């Protein structure tokens, strides 16, 4: 199935490459100069944040396993320090930005925080023997500006957003870890809307599964965020906010701004 998909992609790629060569150059500087400038810009932006970035990371085809927040700080032209909401590790390894189809960001020595997602399942004990969670460690830099960096995973194609880590990063990281633990500790969840309830169970990592749909979830400081806009009973939502315990909801719940969708933990 996957093979066929790639074959289909190959043909347009060849056509595109063929057309590309005939296209006249309209820019003053050469493609190589532009690419080198884009690489230099990405490198400069990534390194420009003293507190680093919050990387909204989603592994797997179609981001189907939910996401994590990785706290990445590019401390030199070669070294990167990584922490995460899902694990207590604090690991320094290396990275590089180099020219490819655009600037490519690669985490090129082993880092256990990326390793959990990128390892074959035979190593990580996730999903299956070969692919595992299918987390990328190489990314095409789609956009790099002072307020955000947008990446695209090279193997899985998932959109991965980096936003600057604010001052007081230790507190922010603690908040994320608390939020992560709160999301992950129930046995399961259910959606509640005016139309009724939908039971959910955990899939691999941070995914929630109904009978028909996979919901890809990432914990945020204030609640949870879904990889893409999601829908239940015709109501669309992307971010839900945590609400503390009430008499009716002794473990609290997450809801949207309109209060029309509740995500309720089940212990």
């Amino acid at each position, binding site marked *: 199935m996957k093979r066929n998909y790639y074959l289909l992609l190959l043909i347009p790629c060849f056509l595109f490459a063929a057309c590309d060569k005939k296209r006249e150059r309209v820019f003053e500087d050469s493609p190589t100069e532009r690419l080198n400038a884009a690489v230099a810009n990405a*490198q400069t932006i990534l390194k420009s944040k003293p507190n680093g970035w919050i990387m909204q990371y989603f592994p797997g085809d179609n981001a189907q396993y939910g996401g994590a927040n990785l706290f990445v700080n590019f401390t*030199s*032209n*070669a070294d990167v320090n990584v922490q995460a909401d899902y694990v207590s590790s604090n690991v320094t*390894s*290396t990275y*590089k930005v*180099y*020219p490819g189809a655009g600037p490519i960001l*690669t*985490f*090129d*020595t*082993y*880092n256990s925080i990326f*390793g959990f997602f*990128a*390892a*074959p*399942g*035979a*190593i990580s*004990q*996730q*999903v*299956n*023997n*070969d*692919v*595992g969670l*299918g987390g990328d*460690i*190489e990314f095409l830099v789609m956009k790099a500006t002072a307020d955000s960096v947008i990446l695209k995973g*090279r*193997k899985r194609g998932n959109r991965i957003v980096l936003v600057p880590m604010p001052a007081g990063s230790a507190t922010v990281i603690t908040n994320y870890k608390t939020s992560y633990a709160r999301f992950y500790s129930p*046995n399961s969840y259910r959606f509640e809307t005016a139309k009724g309830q939908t039971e959910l*169970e*955990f*899939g*691999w990592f941070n995914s929630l*599964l109904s009978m028909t749909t996979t919901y890809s979830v990432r914990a945020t400081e204030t609640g949870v965020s879904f990889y893409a806009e999601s829908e239940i009973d015709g109501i669309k939502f992307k971010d839900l906010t945590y609400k503390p315990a009430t008499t009716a909801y002794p473990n609290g719940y997450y809801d949207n701004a309109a209060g029309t969708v509740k995500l309720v933990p089940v212990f």
Partner: protein
Amino acid sequence: MKFVKFYTVLFASTLMITACNKEKLDPNSVFVDSTIEKNPLDNYIYNNYVLNYNIDILYKFVDKESDQNYNLLPASYNSSIRLTKLFKYLGFEPYDDITGSKAFIKRYFPKVINYIGEAAYRNNGTKILGTAEGAKKITLYEVNRLTATTGANADFLTDSYFHTIHHEFQHILNQTTEFPTSFRSISGNTYVDDLWVSNWATPGAAIAAGFISPYASSSDKEDFAELYSFYITLSATQFNAMLNVTGSTAAGRTIINNKIVAVKNYMLSVWNIDMDLLRANIIARKANLVNFDQTTL
């Protein structure tokens, strides 16, 4: 599902496969960026590998240099330091000692050594531990298994890395000067090709059929490389124990010993290398492993 861990039933029967791809290396595929700070390992590699042997070690993951059909993990910095130091000690210097100079490795060993953190796994649970692409590049997997504990274990080092390294190097020597066709006639039509995976109930059964390992039964080329590598990396005691494992037979041992004579003759007449001297050098280095510093650059 959240609480269900994934355990691979197949893992127990995992087969170690040394695949030998014949892909060409793209000479432009190695990206070098002078703006990246050089660390102590970079400097060590430059001073000890590039300058002495004209060989580069890619310990940092380069996607284009790696098999994109698999999900691969990068090697860790600390394990890369150990393997880089050990590679010289157990991989190159025995040849330098026996041939009298670094010229032999410099001329014939693949120009690129690529490190990968864990094995490349197939969905059926089998994994790849090493590949050589023509004479250009050798890729070593499971580099992250190399730690202070495993690094002190000479048998682990042999099984995990150096058997593969010498095996792949033998293929490259054979590509430069083929071994005599008479070698193939010793085991004749008993090679089983891909069936080597399932053909032998035990290693002893392969020995009884005249093969030093199950993988050696796949073809005469693999047989030749397996015989060479097992012979020079194992002590006489270990090698004899292998030949006399449960299920083996005297008839099988005779076939293997005849083939060993052919491999030794080839190495001596074509490459002027006495395999017994090479083995003695490697065994002495393994015995002295406790005194070898694997971490200081």
